[in-house]
């Protein structure tokens, strides 16, 4: 996993609550057997019309969205299906952090395993970000702070182990594999129960 320590970027804003993973990546693109290339279909049905032409008014199609690595979205982002394709599609598109007042559990887990940072902020900060698309924001994983253009820094919660993995680019599988003796001992207890 690619490490993430400090992120400085303009924001792109999707002011819609309850954005589900079917919107992030529709089911018809889940027939892939690889992780790559899903960014092309990120928010497919919001980005493109029925004829396949890009909808110019959709925020991700606007020129100023280019290069933005921070997505600010409405409450309860990523609800619905467990498809990790949603996290893969966002990463493939270039998004490194999603900021909201709530992020759905399975999506949050999937995001963290792919170097995509879920950031939960208070409603006042969220409200400001929603009203100021394109704001230059910095997110520091080490200190778990998000800094607004005014210089105001707010803390966000990040599970300590997930933070450690992000900072060091470590994937969890190695950690689990290193628990071999504990797992074997647990299985031995199961067998004798």
């Amino acid at each position, binding site marked *: 996993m690619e490490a993430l320590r400090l992120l400085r970027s303009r924001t792109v804003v999707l002011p819609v609550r309850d954005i589900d993973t079917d919107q992030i990546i529709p089911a018809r693109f889940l*027939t892939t*057997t690889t992780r790559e290339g899903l960014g092309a279909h990120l928010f497919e*049905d919001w980005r493109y019309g029925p004829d396949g032409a890009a909808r110019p008014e959709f925020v991700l199609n606007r020129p100023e969205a280019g290069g933005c690595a921070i997505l600010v979205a409405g409450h309860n982002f990523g609800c619905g299906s*467990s498809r*990790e394709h949603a996290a893969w599609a966002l990463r493939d598109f270039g998004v490194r952090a999603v900021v909201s007042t709530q992020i759905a559990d399975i999506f949050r887990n999937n995001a963290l*395993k*792919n170097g995509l940072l879920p950031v939960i902020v208070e409603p006042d900060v969220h409200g400001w970000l929603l009203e100021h698309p394109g704001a230059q924001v910095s997110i520091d994983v080490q200190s778990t702070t998000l800094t607004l253009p005014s210089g105001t820094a707010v803390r966000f919660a990040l*599970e300590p182990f997930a933070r450690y993995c992000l900072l060091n680019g470590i994937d969890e599988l190695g950690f689990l594999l290193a*628990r071999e003796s504990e*797992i074997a001992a647990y299985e031995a207890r199961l067998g004798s129960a």
Partner: protein
Amino acid sequence: MDSSLTLFEKVWRAHEVVPETADTPAVLYVDLHLIHEVTSPQAFTVLRERGLRLRRPERTFATMDHSTPTRTEQIFGGAPITVDAAARQVRELERNCADMGVELLGLRDARRGIVHIIGPELGVTQPGKTIVCGDSHTSTHGALGALAFGIGTTEVGHVFATQCLLQRKPRTLAVNVRGTLPPGVGAKDLILAIIGKIGVAGGTGHVIEYRGETIGALDMDGRMTVCNMSIEAGARAGMIAPDETTFRYLAGRPRAPQGAAWEASLERWRQLPSGPGARFDREVDIDAAALEPMVTYGTNPGMVIPIGASIPERADDQVLAKSLAYMGFTPGEPIREQPVNVVFIGSCTNGRLSDLRAAASVLRGRKIASGVQMLVVPGSQQVKRDAEAEGLDRIFIDAGAEWRESGCSMCLGMNGDLVPKGHYAVSTSNRNFEGRQGIGARTLLASPLTAAASAVRGRVTDPRELF
């Protein structure tokens, strides 16, 4: 056992390989790992890249359901699978299971079906187990008193390699349901009402335990419908304490314990229900006697109203306005009598035998309205055989519906069973998200009774009108 523990806490504790600390999540052991063709390929790839094998292939169980066809000739008659990429996924799962020693109930297996239907049906789903699957509706299995939740593909790989997951302990939410469900109101209406009350993010970070006399009175099919949609309230899992109904359901199933092992299991399972001193982080109360058939009007399952109610008006709510524009609904108009083009009976929510019986009870001796397409897709091949043994297939076919092979089908349309753009579908599935059943498809979630009644009249119909 400690009387202050909840059902969830008992199952959690029994599966802690390493308890959580401030710095690290718990290492949680997984008793049963269910896999399917859509969310497993990339996890198998990771295993191969790292030179790993499955730690416990015998605790892993595979089937194919999401992208598989439902037309008999495409499964048994040699006709090609319509969607090429879906055919590739099916072949890849066959190869991965063969290479890695995983038992697969393949495309033509008589025991195949939707993964969340066949787990309980075969008896592999049991009280007290930890069960995971790369699918959010894994919460279904909690109806038997298991701790069951959906995971992503990276975590599928973790379970392959270590039979464990790193997890923070979720909080607990008790949903206490009292009162008798009125005639025509069932488990689907109950869970839709619960989601309407707590909201689509109301259960985030929590495991729900459904409790109370109403839950105890539900049959297993109904309990699975309730637990299935826990994720639609944002919850990690939903659980129901195992009781005599659970044990009667499991007794004699092919993979359930037999003989002395059954008796020993019963003794353990009877210890699982939350103790009298158990405390939950949150509690919500629901009066089942006050419920009506429920139907969704918007683009998430929390946008739900009693069938006699009108579509909400909130002038300042842009998200609602966007949702109603997608649905083509006018704020303030009744949901009843809205036109219906497609009716879908099936899915891991409502694809079990009692769901098909409910739909058939409305359709017996009736025809679906002209211009309505109705698809009935059993949740498993076993459900299909059981339904046919009772003659339910004849009732559906005589009414003008299509009777298909099992699978996820039109719940998410991966296999080509799609709702056309702009059409209204009354669906017994679990998600009414934009585009879920097809690009531009407009989904109204409802019970099998309401769906069948709406098929007969070609309009959204309160099933009690047809009793």
